[in-house]
């Protein structure tokens, strides 16, 4: 016959075993409930983030030459010499290092460039040069060469501005021959056959390589980056969608 102490021990052991089993059950229940909730919520949040990211990832390529008339109007009467827009004898040159596939450059083209062209370039305060700094991908190089080929017929700026108005999602494959040709036609490139031949020229490789070296030397690693060059020296103003006032102040500082 078990003593009273042994009975107590046995009861205690049984109670602890029951408690341990209940605790284990409760642990499993919590783990399944909370774990499932966390997993489900996480999936929902990630899906929402991806959807918002995709919708903000730029529009698909447009129909080719949208806004051609608006660009023609914007640049009408301003001289173009190769890659330079405006008076070639202007004391100051505003240099933009840009990539045609870059959405921030597109934003600059829409938000800041129109004021820069109408208030600064058209008035002869400075001329404006666009240097092809290709960083997005291989399609940027193809697009840059197409724009440079348009410079042979002094329609470089029409080509750039119209390209930005019709820009698609980077590296999505929209930069096709037909897309580039529709931009060339919309930009008013007079001789399309010559333009097609010119854009295949190997001389543009050296042009693009020179810009790459220049950006490395200047410590530039983003597009669009604006630099001003005048009698007072050269100055990298900054990157991104800079306000016109900042560029005008920089122009004054190098006049």
């Amino acid at each position, binding site marked *: 016959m078990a003593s009273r102490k042994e009975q*107590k*021990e046995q*009861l*205690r052991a049984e109670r*602890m075993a029951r*408690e*341990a089993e209940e*605790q284990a059950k*409760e*642990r499993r229940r*919590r*783990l399944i409930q*909370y*774990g499932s*909730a*966390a*997993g489900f*919520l*996480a*999936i929902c*949040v*990630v899906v929402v*983030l*991806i959807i*918002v*990211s995709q919708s*903000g*990832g*730029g529009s698909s390529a447009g129909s080719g030459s949208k806004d051609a008339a608006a660009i023609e109007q914007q640049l009408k009467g301003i001289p173009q010499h190769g890659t330079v827009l405006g008076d070639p004898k202007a004391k100051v040159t505003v240099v933009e290092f840009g*990539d045609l596939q*870059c*959405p*921030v450059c597109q934003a600059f083209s829409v938000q800041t460039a129109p004021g820069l062209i109408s208030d600064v370039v058209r008035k002869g305060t400075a001329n404006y040069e666009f240097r092809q700094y290709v*960083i*997005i*991908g291989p399609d940027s190089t193809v697009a840059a060469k197409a724009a440079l080929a348009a410079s042979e017929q002094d329609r470089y700026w029409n080509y750039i501005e119209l390209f930005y108005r019709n820009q698609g*999602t*980077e*590296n*999505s494959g929209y930069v096709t021959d037909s897309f580039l040709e529709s931009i060339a036609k919309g930009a008013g490139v007079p001789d399309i056959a010559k333009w097609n031949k010119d854009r295949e020229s190997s001389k543009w490789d050296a042009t693009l390589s020179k810009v790459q070296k220049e950006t490395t030397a200047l410590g530039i*690693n*983003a*597009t*669009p*980056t604006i630099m001003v060059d005048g009698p007072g020296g050269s100055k990298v103003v*900054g*990157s*991104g*969608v*800079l306000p016109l006032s900042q560029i005008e102040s920089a122009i004054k500082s190098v006049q």
Partner: protein
Amino acid sequence: MPSERALRLAGAVIATVGIGVATYITIADSGGGAPTCLAGGHGCATVANSSYSHIAGVNVAVFGIVGYVLLLAAAAIPGDPGRFGGLLMALVGFGFSAYLTYLELFVINAICQWCVASAVLMTLLLLVNAARALTYTGAELTAPPSTSVDQL
């Protein structure tokens, strides 16, 4: 398995490093710049200039800072709320990091070392938080009984 205290400490340290990385990317990107790739090259600039670098006009790195701060908070919160809050945030961070890495590799075609660093930190945080939640959920329930034999 390490103690919960050790896992919480590891989570806090990794989240703090993550806050540093995400803050650097945010500061470098502000004003249109880009983080500097340590080994040179233009990978970071390409990624920073991509349209995928912003969600609804906000730099992705800002979301990273918020995520790491919440993970740091989860490491500081004891019990199941901290365990599952941490697991939830780590799952979100890991899932979104995986998506961003896919974009870098197959859409943008460029790799930014800072983004890779953040993805690695998120992976570590998922491991730490998953270990904490799976091992220590309901740990309070199994606390040693305070009653003694004599109290029966």
